[in-house]
């Protein structure tokens, strides 16, 4: 005699939920408990290296959103480009990472910062000097594995929850 249909399924389900009552919830409470984000984090901001950038403009050409604007002039004495304007509208940026992958001179990175909410649309536009690397805006390891290895390890849910079931 099979004991389906007599409420056994319901009873089994009830045991599962009641067991969860005594388990640790899988929740981290954000402002106090912070998890480490991925080492390859593709965040809201770009970090630009003033020294390395040659002004070639590959990043701007690759960007599918047209979020990067670059204006250069030629410095005849040293025979190179001077970047007059480098501006990223992070409101348009979809954090795809194609610009970072395409930069031939390793001058563009994602930042590892993720709390970049702004009050105004105009504040989302980053240009030259607020794109440099600072201690608060560390460089993310996206596409640069050697940089990734220096960042703290990502917190994984698989490792956090240890309860038996």
């Amino acid at each position, binding site marked *: 005699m099979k004991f389906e249909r007599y409420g056994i*399924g319901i009873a089994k389900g009830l045991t599962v939920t009641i067991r969860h009552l005594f388990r640790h919830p899988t929740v981290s409470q954000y402002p106090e408990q912070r998890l480490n984000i991925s080492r390859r984090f593709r965040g809201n901001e770009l970090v630009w290296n003033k020294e390395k950038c040659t002004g070639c403009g590959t990043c701007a050409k690759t960007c599918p959103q047209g979020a990067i604007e670059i204006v250069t002039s030629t410095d005849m004495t040293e025979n190179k480009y001077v970047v007059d304007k480098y501006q990223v509208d992070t409101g348009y940026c979809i954090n*795809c990472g194609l610009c970072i992958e395409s930069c031939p001179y390793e001058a563009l990175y994602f930042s590892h910062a993720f709390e970049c909410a702004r009050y105004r649309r105009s504040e989302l536009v980053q240009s030259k000097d607020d794109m440099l690397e600072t201690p608060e805006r560390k460089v993310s390891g996206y*596409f640069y594995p050697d940089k990734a290895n220096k960042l703290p390890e990502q917190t994984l849910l698989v490792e956090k929850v240890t309860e038996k079931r």
Partner: protein
Amino acid sequence: MAVRTEPFVLNMGPVHPSTHGVFRMRVTLDGEVVVDIEPIFGYLHRGIEKLAEQRTYTGIIPLTDRLDYISSMSNNFAYCLAVEKLAGIKVPERAEYIRVIIAELQRVAALLIAVGAFLNDCGAFFTPFLYMFRERERIVDLFEMVSGQRLTYNYMRVGGVSQDLPDEFMPALRKFMNMMPRFMAEYDRLLVQNEILIARAKGVGILTGEQAINCSASGPVLRASGVKWDIRKADPYSIYDRFDFAIPTQTTGDCYDRYRQRVEETRQSLHIIRQAMEQIPSGPVRAELPQLIRPPAGEAYAHIEAPKGELGFYLVSDNSIAPYRCHIRPPSLINLTALRDMVRGWKIADLIIIFGSIDITVGEIDR
């Protein structure tokens, strides 16, 4: 005693708790019974196919993320296969394995959501949904590790993947794979035998195999109706012919079968991942390609077995850096055409679960 009743029209959506996005149904009701239904969509139209014509072949990959946003990796995969077919690019061995592992993980994640949302539509007050989201979270963690994002992964590239797996990936994946069977057992314990669920879903919204073929449904919806058709076996792409896995099918094609079908497919996916983890070689992960890909003029169609069914990309190239035409065959849209046949004569509550059991993503329907 026949009571004369008058049908009335109920507008479900575009914003409704269980239309899974901005989707609208004009339902003609006779009391509680659904007389007719007319799906209306287009509220999420972003013109992805048209946008694709102005972007470089690489620049389209982030767009495909936004099709079926809960299985971005599969979309990336299908698109990259299409471009590779068009341009005749050979993908390195390791990249193929990475793609398979990631695509199957994505299938598990997407099916977990599908099952959770379906059970939520049945009225199990968010419990299965949250449990399954918790497990999906573990997969998303892994995806975040490899790609840096949690929803729009943009990980696969034409000719491989964007970066190699980090060193921490394999141990974490192994841990996840050890956990998963226990989770699955727990879900089964929670609801599979539940009398109410059986009463609600068994025999409801039957889609016969013939009907399913006629409206060219695919994926779990088709297989739940008893048709053994899986593109991974029928037209093996990538390296799926190297793995040993079964195609589970169900018999009747009702809502309960579609739910079981998804659970069984999750099991098979885990089985594939396990094999791929053992076989994965080392080596490069990205073919040497120029920045801008210029495929020769011609056309190519590549399709994969996405979590929701057959996802196909049809690309026409005119030997420029952007495709001349990009057409997407979204599984959700095609599966949705079966809805009308399934719901007529059932009640509103059934309409919701039948709709839920088809498992659509509006991002894919409207494109």
